[in-house]
């Protein structure tokens, strides 16, 4: 307050609590949007389920081995599927 306050050049040093609040919010909001907001189309769970069924025809995998991720960068949307296949050794013989 007072004299120094008056001459302070920048109103928003990056160490203020407001700057900290903004940073924390940007992180948590981006994280939460990833799972729900605008990001996640309604069809995603169904798509994931069907995909799992298709892959299962050839390789035995379970729900937890499929990861679906939707990203937005600028004007692009990237839909990313990550399917972890079991090790060759642990793979049961394919049924005829």
């Amino acid at each position, binding site marked *: *307050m*007072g*004299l120094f*306050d*008056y001459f302070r050049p920048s*109103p*928003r*040093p990056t160490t*203020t*609590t*407001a*700057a900290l*609040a*903004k940073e*924390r*919010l*940007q992180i*948590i*909001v981006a994280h*939460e*949007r990833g799972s*729900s*907001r*605008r990001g*996640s189309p*309604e069809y995603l769970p169904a798509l994931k389920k069907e995909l799992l069924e298709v892959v299962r025809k050839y390789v035995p995998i379970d729900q937890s081995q499929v990861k679906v991720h939707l990203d937005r960068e600028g004007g692009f949307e990237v839909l990313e599927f990550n399917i972890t296949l079991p090790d060759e050794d642990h793979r049961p013989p394919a049924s005829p």
Partner: protein
Amino acid sequence: MATVIVVTSGKGGVGKTTTSASFATGLALRGYRTVVIDFDVGLRNLDLIMGCERRVVYDFINVINNEANLNQALIRDKRVENLYILPASQTRDKDALTKEGVEKILNELKQTFDYIVCDSPAGIERGALMSLYYADEALVVTNPEVSSVRDSDRILGILASRSQRAEQGDAPVKEHLVLARYAPDRAYRGDMLTIQDVLEILGIPLLGVIPESQAVLQSSNAGVPVILEEGSDAGAAYADLVDRFLGKDLPHRFIEIPKKGFLKRLFGGG
């Protein structure tokens, strides 16, 4: 064709009911037939803020259950022409709000009103979901504070995925940000998120900034929507907000630090 506007926020205590009351009053003052509906079943408060608590006979749920008709339940505002209040039930369970029931009443109201303002309860449960389901536009009330901003973002997600417009694939609910309880001096000092900070995080257009103001509590004490308190900063900010909603291009006021005298600023105190 009537427009349904939900006033929502996720978090409680940020100014939803204050905003609903003043927004609806402002629309009516400008000549539009307006009804404001309290969706907070079990915890009604809009009637107190509007100053008509002693005139409540029938409520929203009575009308849904065909225990009263709409004309019996609607309370005509005594100060402003064209303004009606539909109070929430204080005694019923919020499960009484059904999609079909709410739709029936909104359709009936659409016959006679230009604007239907839905005052959402806090949270994201039934009452809140019902209040936003049929909305064409949404006023998202946010305070420049972390939990309020985060909850507003959640509500934006729900508007975009669980409203009727989203479910039917129609044009999305039009979103407006109402930043309430803003204190320019605290934002300037770095103790409060700035308008720009909140806009960057939420990414929806700003409809109005309501300054932190003593007038809000004073007018609620008296049961008068703050927009009717002429000369008050919050009242003027709401009046601008209504005009902007109706298409006027007005600059935002009350967002600068109040000017102090040179000496007072130099030597502090304040």
